[in-house]
């Protein structure tokens, strides 16, 4: 194992971590604010990816060829999917099952996920989709004698970081953001204070959905789209969220990096356990800190 391999692993890891973070961010946001562990998030990832692929393919066929256009199409697809699906899911499902047991809510999202898996297969079929154009267009960069794609070490991490900074800004500095934080801490008190819970709830859900879809869209150029991608990503992002601590945003960033890097390094160093790496990490973390790495103390209940 030489230095080059190490750097490649690092780059892979960072790019993978970026995608993981975007999806996990949406998931942990929805859980933190609404208390729902949303398995449908995996479908949003997949749908975001497939829609983005279709849109960019469409754009290319109709000579909207320029790279920025393609890129915008990618992002737009994700945001649209997130918005639409987020609204739909919130209105039709979440409101209806709001007062139920958290496990029941989780199963509801699981049921919807399973339904959407088939919807996805019906629309786009089961053969893998690939749309790697953008990556090759953006070219490569050389660092320390190793070649990386700009997309992997530039675009994905920047968007991930931008989302993180943007979300933090939203939560800390804007009115709606602060209301969201209030809602997270104490639903009843927030309502009594005049926070429009329904509106904020819908907002958060849509925001989370858009982040998930964005992750999917950005994954398009670097991976091929297959029917199982949503399932794989949801399990992985759950792992990140549980390891970081439910609702922890900065924690999710750090954990995504940790898991992303561990996974990539394992591919080169310990290929037998590369797939299992995220879960092994989660197991180790939860053994030592049962509520996740970054959870804050709970207030007294008796």
């Amino acid at each position, binding site marked *: 194992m030489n230095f080059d391999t190490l750097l490649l692993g690092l780059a892979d890891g960072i790019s993978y971590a970026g995608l993981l973070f975007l999806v996990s961010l949406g998931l942990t946001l929805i859980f933190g604010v609404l208390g729902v562990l949303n398995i449908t998030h995996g479908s949003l990832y997949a749908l975001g990816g497939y829609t983005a692929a279709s849109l960019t393919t469409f754009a290319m066929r109709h000579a909207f060829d320029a790279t920025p256009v393609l890129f915008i199409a990618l992002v737009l697809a994700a945001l649209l999917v997130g918005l639409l699906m987020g609204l739909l899911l919130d209105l039709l499902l979440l409101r209806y099952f709001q007062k139920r047991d958290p496990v029941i809510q989780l199963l509801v999202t699981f049921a919807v996920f399973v339904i959407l898996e088939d919807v996805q297969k019906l629309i786009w079929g089961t053969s893998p989709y690939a749309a790697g154009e953008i990556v090759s267009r953006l070219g490569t960069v050389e660092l320390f004698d190793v070649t990386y794609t700009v997309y992997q070490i530039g675009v994905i991490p920047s968007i991930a970081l931008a989302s993180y900074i943007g979300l933090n800004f939203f939560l800390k500095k804007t009115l709606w953001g602060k209301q969201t934080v209030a809602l997270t801490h104490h639903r009843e008190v927030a309502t009594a204070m005049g926070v429009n819970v329904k509106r904020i709830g819908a907002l958060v859900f849509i925001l989370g959905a858009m982040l998930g879809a964005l992750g999917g869209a950005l994954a398009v150029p670097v991976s091929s789209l297959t029917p199982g991608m949503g399932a794989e990503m949801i399990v992985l992002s759950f792992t990140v969220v549980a390891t970081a601590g439910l609702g922890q945003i900065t924690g999710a960033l750090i954990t995504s990096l940790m898991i992303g890097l561990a996974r990539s390094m394992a591919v080169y160093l310990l290929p037998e356990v590369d797939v299992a790496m995220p879960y092994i990490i989660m197991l180790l973390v939860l053994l030592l800190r049962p*509520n996740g790495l970054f959870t804050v103390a709970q207030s007294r209940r008796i």
Partner: protein
Amino acid sequence: MKLGMFSALSVLVLLVLGIVFPWTKTMLIIGLCYGLSALGVAIPARSGQVSFGHAMFACVSAYAVAFLARAFPSMDGVVLLVLATLTGTLFASVFGSFVVRYRGIFFGMLNLAISMVIVALLGKLYELSGGTDGIRVQRPSWGGLVTERAEFETILLWVSCCVALLAGWFYQRFTQSATGEALRGLKSNETRLEYLGISAHYVLWVGYVGSGFFVSLAGAIFALAQGLVTPDMGSWTRSGELVFIMILGGSSHALGPFVGAAVFQAVKLFASAYMAGVWQMLLGLTLLTVIALAPEGIMGAWQAYRCRSSKGAQP
């Protein structure tokens, strides 16, 4: 008619089906295995802790059958079943001692994580486990008897039926016992349990080991019935199916998971025959409907209906 009677009668029906339509035997055995596994998942679920990785015990037990059969080709089927079930149950006791410290989502996720690691390892360690192709299990003798395929299936059907009835009986007794009710108390107030001097961890561990036993037993039978063990026997989708079956049938009575398994198999068959490609959608819609309209599952709805009609019948 009491539910116990109904269970016994259903078993008779299954046995008759197996005689009259011999091609249904494997399907019935598999259905019973699913039901038994879902029954296992139902035990910790009563304390509000739903495991999303329980299929791993079926997987471990199945691979135990495969490894033992491969190493000792003349080992009897009964011995294989017993040893494999013990192996799975041992795993459950060991993992259980860690896992019972967690609650809610973390309990679910920890179980999921362990199962993913096991599945990943089995998939990758090709030399040992045959990788994703799995290992074939030769038909063993049964109690000293060497049998043909058809006879072996009949034996397994009988075994599954007896096991299902016994398991149901144990489930009913256990859930109404002091430990079973303490387990249910864990769901609503763990602090109170501790302040009565009852160890919540211990109570949950007992339930967890019991559930591991049921699922391991189901996995061993499944391995013998299918003749092949693969890593995806322990996949998270399988674990999810078990949870789904449990919710569908309801966990208030032992019959529930078996009813759920029957409906699940029926939907799968129906969907793959007439609407191939959308069976998952159908399953998802069924789950949503059940959760929305009958949150206690089919058995729960049935029991509520019986309760209402008996109240209504009073003068």
